[in-house]
């Protein structure tokens, strides 16, 4: 007993102050990229050619990067002779609509909160059933880590549950493999309506590196309506947490 208490004292309090205080991420962390088409050298498409997932479109001085396809490898940044693509350590990337997952010249639109009725339903208690549909294990691991003392997901009234009957929505990872299409749909049907779907990771959003494989659907929204897209390869736990809190209107930035 004394040993336990001693260990408890030594381990201390470890929960992040997020969202009250900004978390510190390693300077090397590759979060949301920024692009500046005005720096592009005429006719250069080195970044688009270096991209493994065709996430970059270069068209006459405009540069667009699809975060739904991006695997955050940094090849575009390395290949650019003019510094027009740059990865920042900004972990905030989740959006509500697929078309908002574009980094270009305009402002990046982060996820808006649900409407008032939905916030009334889910805002203070939101339970998720996780389904891996061809995920690699990394996306699942960094979703699961939200339940540790570091992130302490439950303090926001959000948690993972075992039964879809107890859930308010699904958090789906993976490009939706052929054998998981049916189980994914059956799990979704078992969640009482109204229900939300969150797609986590490049593979879940666009198929990621599996885009074009005959064995996968190529994204969760081919099968289910998606309410929140969380980009990353895999997304940082904070990217997922930030997205969920934005969706629920828990970051104090939502209109009343």
């Amino acid at each position, binding site marked *: 007993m004394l040993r336990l208490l001693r260990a408890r004292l030594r381990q201390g309090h470890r929960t992040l102050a997020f969202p009250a205080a900004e978390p510190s991420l390693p300077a090397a962390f590759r979060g949301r990229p920024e692009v500046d088409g005005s720096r592009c050298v005429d006719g250069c498409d080195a970044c688009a050619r270096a991209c493994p997932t065709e996430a970059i479109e270069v068209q006459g001085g405009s540069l667009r990067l699809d975060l739904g396809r991006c695997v955050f*490898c940094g090849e575009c940044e*390395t290949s650019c002779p003019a510094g027009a693509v740059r990865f920042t350590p900004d972990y905030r990337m989740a959006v509500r609509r697929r078309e908002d997952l574009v980094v270009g010249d305009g402002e990046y639109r982060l996820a808006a909160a649900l409407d008032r009725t939905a916030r009334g339903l889910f805002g203070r208690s939101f339970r998720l059933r996780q389904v891996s549909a061809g995920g*690699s294990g990394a996306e699942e691991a960094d979703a699961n880590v939200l339940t540790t003392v570091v992130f302490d997901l439950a303090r926001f009234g959000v948690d993972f549950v075992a039964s879809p009957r107890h859930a308010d929505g699904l958090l789906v990872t993976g490009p939706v*493999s052929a*054998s998981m299409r049916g*189980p994914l749909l059956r799990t979704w049907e078992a969640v009482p309506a109204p229900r939300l779907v969150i797609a986590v990771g490049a593979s879940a959003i666009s198929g990621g590196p599996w885009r074009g494989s005959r*064995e996968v659907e190529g994204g969760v929204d081919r099968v289910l309506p998606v309410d929140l897209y969380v980009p990353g390869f895999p997304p940082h736990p904070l990217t997922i947490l930030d997205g969920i809190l934005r969706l629920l209107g828990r970051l104090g930035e939502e209109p009343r």
Partner: protein
Amino acid sequence: MTGTGGAPLRAWNATAFGADEITPMPVEALGAALARRVSEAWRLVALFGIPRERLPLPLVALLSHPDGGWLEVLGTEVGQAYPSFTPSCPQAARFEREVCEQFGVRPAGHPWLKPVRGEASWGPGPVEPHPRGAEIGVGYPFFSMEGSGVHEVAVGPVHAGVIEPGHFRFQCHGEVVHHLEIVLGYQHRGVERALLGGPHRATVQQIEELSGDATVAHATAYCEVREALAAQVVPPRGQALRALALELERMACHTGDLGALAGDVGFLPTAAYCGRLRGVFLDLTAELCGNRFGRGFVRPGGVTRDLADGDARRMLETLRTAEPELRSAVELFFSSGSVLARVEQVGVVSREDALALGLVGVAARACGLSVDARQDHPSGLYRVSHIPVATSSGGDVHARAVVRWLEVQRSLDFVRRVLRELPSGPVRTPEKPPRPDAAAFSLVEGWRGEVVHVAVTGRSGSFERYKVVDPSFRNWPGLELAVRGQQVSDFPLCNKSFNLSYSGHDL
């Protein structure tokens, strides 16, 4: 790399040889060679087909010498059916099922010829063990028991935790499990077919996503194969940084597993502390390369980012703080009677079964088998800098936990040494294309065990075959054995003690 006149070809880890040096022998002779070799404690590391328009289908077997540091590469050609190797070489069981599913050739006399992941046949053979387009678990020929009081428990593919999908079918009498059959394939994304004709643009990303928490292990194996095929040299600093990333991956995952085991027996202190400390190692990986799982780091020729001296010092500082915290968290686990009562003598795999099945990694070492690619087939930094092999003897949940904890400590020592003695110089040489008509393999000791990649290039230098064997492919049968005679309620604990990859198996 000597293999003339029908003698077996001897080859070394991460060293290329000519594809034509694999001379086919009669299939009966290959079967006899496999039986003889495994009886002499050799291990079957891989057995796979090479795609062809029409039969015969070339088969290649890789066998690891028990202590010679080399592999024997044997080849044969088979028609629509051939005498199964499995009855005299049980290690071949799952490999033969895979060959049957992928290429439609039948291993006649195979005792357990069932689908392995439900992928559609690539041809050229006509056999289809799984109905085309059907979900893997639907219509699956499950083994079943009959008798009064016998009942079945079915779990999955979607199960309770935040975890990948698989189906588990238990045959029970009362609370006791008599048989468990694990059906996988739900995560199949078509990895090996996607790799054909490569390297493609997204090949290395597919390798990194093959089994997400073993990103560095698989990426290293891939790059070693690519470098062998191109006779490309990795600078010493690049090799050191790769090994650093690989050991950080091991420490993160083992720490997470120790915490998860504690969670499964309801011992929350260790669960909470290790849950956090796992993140410390993941964050160190992110400091090293910008991604918590080491993605975007290991590339043919070396690594993509150098480590500044100041960063290395800061990482050492972090480890200095983390080590006593981890030690305190884990020692609570191993010194608590309520924990030991739940993990000792639970989920036992015998040494004989581990040998017969060809288990690898933590699962094998927990049975007392000294199997570790870092020692048996060293490549990269492990050629010159060694990590002692950690084994235990019980073969139970406790032994698998002990091996994990020993390995974390040894990796910690190794990582500190690497950080203090980083060689100077560049971290990468320019990528080169693979040479044509060649073959190479790489064995990398990932945190779960031996990761095997084999490439065979065709006339144009592109992959005619790229075979991946994740350690989980060989260890899932170990879990099936471990739960026999156990309580159904001990399954989650046994499962966690192996913590195998679904995506790595399903490819």
